[in-house]
């Protein structure tokens, strides 16, 4: 259902350039359309101004900072160099990349596996468990974040040296390691992603699975070699949203990552305030913030269709 609606929506929108004006023959409607267009241009301007202002500020010298002009004069490229001259930026970037990478892999793999079961296998208790999945979509995180912290602070960390997950063989518990930020994603920690994947998998013809079964393929092979390759758009949507939420997560790292060398970029950014001693250095903060935002921005520019479709499907939870 969800996928077909989105396709229909996108079909309607193709071929919507200036021809929408030139094809209009009623003068009254033309004026109304022109007014709507201009109003929308103004709204779009308001949405873009903060970003432009951010870029502009990041290139201004301290003397130029209070100048309301959008064009920095002179252009202070050195802000980008200076902003990264303190703090452990290399380390924080690496940490963020590691956490984000494993979150995405874990989320894509586990939610597709679980969704496969809900969408394509029949077993007793399925309807009941799926209703619980849907119910957890509405569950506010606030009831679980404290006991989760307690559980993670009681779970003994493995006594191994594994710097990739901030494990140094001495961690008393999972706190101050990357495990609390990664492991839940390997256990299908997003009801919405399960729902999205299940909707998509139900659209894959059952006959394909039947044929593979007759050929003696195991269920995992059918999932991996037959169904999953046909679900690439849904997998991409889940990967992209997980990438974004993991990259931008603030509360998780704030709770669990306590020593400075384990920070992620979002937490590390906070050190900017103190960089110049006392008052925040806005040019540096904007330069640093832009760099931290950049990866998600690039992914958006490259894959914006998946973002838009994913959001559209998320809105169909109410239908």
């Amino acid at each position, binding site marked *: 259902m969800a996928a077909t609606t989105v396709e229909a929506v996108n079909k309607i929108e193709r071929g919507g350039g200036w*021809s929408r004006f030139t094809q209009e023959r009623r003068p009254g409607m033309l004026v109304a359309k022109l007014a709507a267009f201009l109003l929308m241009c103004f*709204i779009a301007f308001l*949405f873009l101004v903060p*970003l432009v202002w951010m870029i502009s500020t990041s290139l201004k010298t301290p003397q130029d900072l209070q100048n309301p002009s959008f064009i920095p004069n002179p252009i202070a490229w050195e802000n980008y160099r200076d902003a990264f001259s303190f703090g452990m930026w290399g380390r924080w970037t690496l940490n963020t990349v590691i956490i984000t990478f494993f979150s995405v892999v874990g989320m894509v793999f586990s939610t597709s596996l679980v969704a496969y079961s809900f969408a394509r296998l029949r*077993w*007793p208790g*399925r309807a009941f468990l799926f209703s619980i999945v849907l119910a957890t979509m509405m569950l506010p995180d606030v009831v679980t974040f404290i006991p989760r912290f307690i559980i993670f602070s009681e779970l003994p960390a493995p006594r191994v040296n594994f710097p990739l997950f901030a494990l140094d063989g001495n961690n008393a518990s999972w706190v101050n390691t990357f495990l609390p930020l990664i492991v839940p994603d390997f256990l299908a920690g997003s009801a919405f992603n399960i729902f999205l994947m299940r909707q998509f998998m139900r659209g894959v013809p059952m006959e394909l699975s039947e044929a593979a079964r007759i050929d003696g393929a195991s269920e995992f092979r059918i*999932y991996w070699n037959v169904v999953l390759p046909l679900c690439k758009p849904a997998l991409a949507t889940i990967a992209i949203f997980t990438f974004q939420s993991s990259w931008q997560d603030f509360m998780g790292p704030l709770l669990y990552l306590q020593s400075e060398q384990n920070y992620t970029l979002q937490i590390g950014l906070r050190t900017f305030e103190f960089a110049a001693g006392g008052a*925040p250095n806005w040019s540096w903060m904007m330069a640093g913030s832009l760099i931290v*935002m950049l990866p998600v921005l690039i992914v958006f520019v490259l894959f914006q269709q998946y973002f838009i479709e994913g959001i559209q499907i998320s809105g169909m939870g109410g239908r």
Partner: protein
Amino acid sequence: MAESAQSQDVVQRRPQSAARTGLRLNNSTREAVNGWLFVMPWVIGFALFTAIPMVFSFYTSFTNYNLIRSPQWVGTRHYENIFTNDPYFWKSLENTFWMVGIRVPIVMTLALAIAILLNTKIPYERVFRTIVYLPNVLAGAAAVYLWQWILSPTGLLNQALEGVGIDGPSWFTNPNWTKPALVVMGLWWIGGNIIIYLAAIKGVPQTLYEAASIDGASPWHKLRYITLPMISPTIFFQVITSIIGTFQIFTTAYIIITTGGLSPAEGGPGRSLLFYVIYLYNRAFGKVGSSRGFDMGYASALAWILFVIILAITLFQLWLSKRWVYYESGEGG
């Protein structure tokens, strides 16, 4: 959420291929075993990170627990203290309800209005759609800094207001303006809501509008009697998720409060940004007044109170929705 798991199943008979497998299981048993195996990651995750934590947190809310010593039973004392003797609780509740009451209606109305505008077949609709969604990918701490800069006393917004003769307030230092500042900031991220509304509006069957045109209906009447009723399930869903989200506002407020190295304990100027989850965080991990944090029992009690409030409001909305949400019959999976 009209979906149900069993709705679309077709019972399929397959030729016996048990001989090919080593196991002597019939097909439906094997399918059931596989089904449970495949769903295991979620079952374990749900038990470990949702079900057990909820039960544990309910128990903890009746104890004194600071992570070091084992929990000590104190009965309903935390709940009594919260309701009778805790000014922070009432202040945080007041701030949070303010945000829900002001922010949600503004966001919903504006998002719907822009979606309707985008649907008037204007040129470059897709470009506009991308632009309004763009800020949603620019979230996190970095975006909060950007807005602190824009809303600083001599920042971009106040300069623009000065241009039209308005003396802008000092947004983040005047207790009366901190919450409006958050509302203004939040408007930058309504792109997701706009996209969802737009998709819903485009899903309304064109034939309804054509029939109305023949009857001579005005654009306003089409909006009021066709579009709005037809997208009411989407409006309902968005209002619910938006309310739940606003009740749990944390990151933005936390970053603003702690700017300049301040402790989150006081909750910003005049406690005006002491939202419920900020207060909860302070009880659990930070400081409140003279008491040291790690008050997990008290914090758990706070969490359950918020949970009950959110649940009650959601159920009330659900009840209310019967009066205004229109579900097309026959719509299923």
